[in-house]
């Protein structure tokens, strides 16, 4: 990854900028001490580090706008940050930029059961939304494994998913409205309690935009009544192919489980070792299938899925009999990342999505690559929607290992694209996959995306250096190339 050139005059004027920031949002909300700034040097992708020039921690939306306005006027770059759990370096700071931390905007503004929604400030954590409404039997559906820490603002910026998005969708499918502060400090309201409305679907565009288009200052999210019942199944297979076949047949039979997760042998072992959740250790692949909804529907689906599993030569089938057992089935999966962290000094988490039918091909390619690079890989997989999380095991203390892991990862993602998939399903492009974007998109595709960026942030001050391999000036992108006065095609057929 090549960093952007540092704007020295901005660095030189740091003291003055600090003073102006303090004027805007107060001494307590500006971090200038080097040691304190260093706490923000990386997000969940810890291989990349950069101490920010300054850190601003606004307490209100007005503060956010004031910081943006100031930076806009002075041409200073801004990197928004929620909880800093991004796995793609989306919140990686800039040496010549202000890190805009949103954690102090952590208030739930409104809980509205009648309209089935919660209005939250961006720094509210994902889980806090569910906590605010669970007494009344409601919950917020998207559930990233990082949900105790990650913020709704970060979830929107990354369009985060979770193990239940097969049935309930990603963040984007659960949003009703947004308030967005633009780089100029102006705010716009999109949608609201009534939902996404007319005009262009800018909520759709902002969701997953990795903090490049605007700063989310308030979100209205949909909450759902908790399903009447939820039951999970733990199904073991002697081959990954059989597990893949089972997934395809479940969906082919018209059943959309709430979640359908797959783990390979190494991931099963690591998780069992870590969480002692009773996973079978004599199988090559494990599926966790959760069915939820009205009791009758769940019973019916469990029966159907059991039959399908048997027809796919399942080696073991267990059905949870109570919520405690269901939680136990999930405990291992939910701890898969930290569990992997116990069997190797370091791991590198990938996030490609593939058409489900390509799973056997991709798995065999993964195992070839694993031998070629001499690095082990554990696979956890949102099997229902084709989202792979290969965890590449390495040791950062071995010189060259990190680079090897990164090349391995890039090869995996390129293969995902080759089989009709994409570079990232839920973790975002960030700095990590920025240089791989051209595997999926050509120059024209990328230019068109950047023109959208230009509409929101013509100066390119908001989170630059993420998502796009090359930065073009908006003026250059705006030029229209017309081939001199060519006539409108008179030769085309008319009706």
């Amino acid at each position, binding site marked *: 990854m090549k960093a952007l050139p540092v704007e020295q005059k901005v660095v030189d004027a740091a003291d003055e900028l600090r003073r102006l920031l303090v004027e805007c949002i107060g001494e307590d909300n500006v971090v200038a001490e080097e040691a304190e700034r260093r706490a923000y040097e990386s997000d969940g992708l810890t291989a990349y580090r950069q101490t920010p020039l300054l850190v601003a921690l606004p307490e209100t939306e007005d503060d956010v706008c004031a910081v943006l306005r100031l930076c806009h006027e002075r041409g200073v770059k801004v990197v928004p940050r929620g909880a800093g759990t991004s796995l793609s370096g989306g919140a990686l700071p800039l040496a010549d930029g202000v890190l805009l931390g949103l954690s102090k905007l952590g208030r739930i503004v409104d809980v509205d059961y009648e309209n089935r929604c919660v209005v939250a400030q961006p720094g509210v954590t994902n889980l806090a939304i569910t906590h605010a409404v669970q007494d009344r039997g409601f919950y917020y559906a998207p559930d990233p494994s990082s949900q105790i820490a990650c913020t709704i603002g970060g979830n929107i910026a990354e369009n985060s998913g979770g193990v239940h998005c097969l049935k309930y969708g990603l963040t984007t499918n659960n949003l009703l409205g947004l308030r967005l502060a633009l780089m100029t400090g102006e705010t716009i309201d999109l949608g609201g309690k009534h939902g996404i409305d007319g005009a262009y679907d800018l909520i759709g565009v902002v969701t997953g935009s990795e903090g490049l288009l605007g700063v989310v200052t308030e979100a209205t999210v949909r909450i759902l009544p908790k399903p009447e019942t939820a039951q999970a199944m733990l199904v073991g297979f002697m081959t990954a192919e059989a597990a893949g076949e089972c997934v395809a047949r479940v969906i082919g039979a018209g059943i959309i489980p709430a979640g359908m997760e797959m783990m390979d042998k190494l991931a099963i072992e690591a998780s069992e070792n870590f969480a002692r959740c009773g996973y079978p250790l004599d199988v090559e692949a494990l599926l966790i299938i959760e069915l939820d909804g009205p009791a009758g529907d769940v019973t019916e689906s469990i029966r159907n899925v059991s039959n399908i599993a048997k027809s796919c030569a399942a080696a073991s089938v267990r059905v949870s009999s109570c919520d405690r057992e269901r939680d136990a089935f999930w405990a291992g999966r939910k701890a898969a990342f930290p569990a992997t962290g116990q069997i190797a000094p370091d791991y590198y988490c990938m996030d490609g999505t593939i058409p489900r039918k390509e799973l056997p091909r991709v798995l065999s390619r993964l195992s070839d690559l694993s031998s070629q690079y001499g690095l082990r890989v554990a696979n956890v997989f949102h099997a229902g929607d084709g989202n792979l999380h290969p965890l590449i095991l390495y040791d950062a203390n071995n010189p060259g290992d990190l680079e090897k892991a990164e090349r391995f990862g890039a090869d995996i993602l390129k293969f995902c694209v080759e089989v009709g998939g994409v570079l990232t399903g839920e973790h975002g492009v960030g700095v990590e996959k920025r240089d791989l974007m051209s595997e999926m998109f050509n120059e024209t595709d990328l230019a068109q995306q950047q023109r959208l960026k230009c509409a929101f942030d013509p100066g390119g001050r908001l989170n630059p250096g993420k998502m796009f391999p090359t930065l073009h000036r908006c003026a250059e992108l705006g030029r229209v190339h017309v081939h001199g006065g060519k006539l409108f095609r008179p030769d085309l057929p*008319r009706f």
Partner: protein
Amino acid sequence: MGPVYSTRSAAETADIVKSALADRTTLDVQGTGAKQPLGRPAAANAVLTLSHMNGVMFYEPEELVLSVEPGVLLDDIEQMLSEKQQMLAFEPPDYSGLFGSSGSGTIGGAVACGLSGPRRFSAGAARDFVLGVKGVSGRGEAFKSGGRVMKNVTGYDLSKLMTGSFGTLAVLTEVTLKTLPRPPFETTLLVSGVGLERGVAILRRMAQTPYEPNGLAYLPKGVGQGACAAIRLEGAKVAVEERVASLRKTLQGQKILTLLRGESQAFWRDVRDVASLIDGGSPLWKAIVPPSDVELFVQENDPQAYFLDWGGGLVWLTMKEESAAPSARNGAIYLVRAPAAMRATAPVFPPLSEPLRALTEKVKNGFDPAGILNPMRMYSGF
């Protein structure tokens, strides 16, 4: 109306748009024209029709994915999917009755207009089912966004931006959609003899239950079946029957009619297609409001006729005075059917705040800097 150009491929589409750009021809982009009366009239001097660009790229039911060219007819898609017990869960409406057009139109038109039927409040809107698009921008450049997989955050989600942009940003040349299994069984309960207040209370209560209703409408007296709240349940037969039994208990004391499969389907098709408000020809409005506001909305606007869908989040209405426009404290109002002259002057889409209007115009310019694709179709000025 000017000349009509027909395209059969993305390359040809790019050629046409490029030439139009060169001589400042403006294009009215159409499928079969079924939704021409929707939105503002485009101020264009030529027509570009996509109805001959109608190939099915692939349909893989077990992957829940369908990829088609824009000119494929909605009816044909419905047919193709139902053979595999699948559906487009956003229930794209058929406005042929409403507009007196000859068919329900093309998938390109359905996506471009971004219209969603009764399942909107539970399963999602058209935008939630568009996985990927290919298009030609007003710069005459072919581009793509998204893909064919269910989960994808690689780059900005232009697929959602295209959905509902009424062809003002790009000409769609391919759309990839998520399909869903069609539930094997459905039942609708009609709680009859209820006024607005009671009806809305029932919808609200149902939306809070875990019985997963995926159709919740209210029809007042004189509209369709009249004075009833409708609750649709779908799923496996035994399971739906169980839920029906539970709901009947919750609704004890009410007069309840049960609509079985065919009747239920017909009922929701009518709701989807606004069948009960077709007659009369007066301007038809649609308001999206927070369900908690819906009673007040109806009282304040005192419509000629109306009904509610989306659990009370959507109001279809005609006004007593033809020239009057409804208003909402919160929400968004659209003019759906009106003579062209009225659509050219009244706000057809919800008005935009000043910064949002400026941003919207910049987004438009980023795709179509010369303003040659469906000019003015959404807003006066661009």
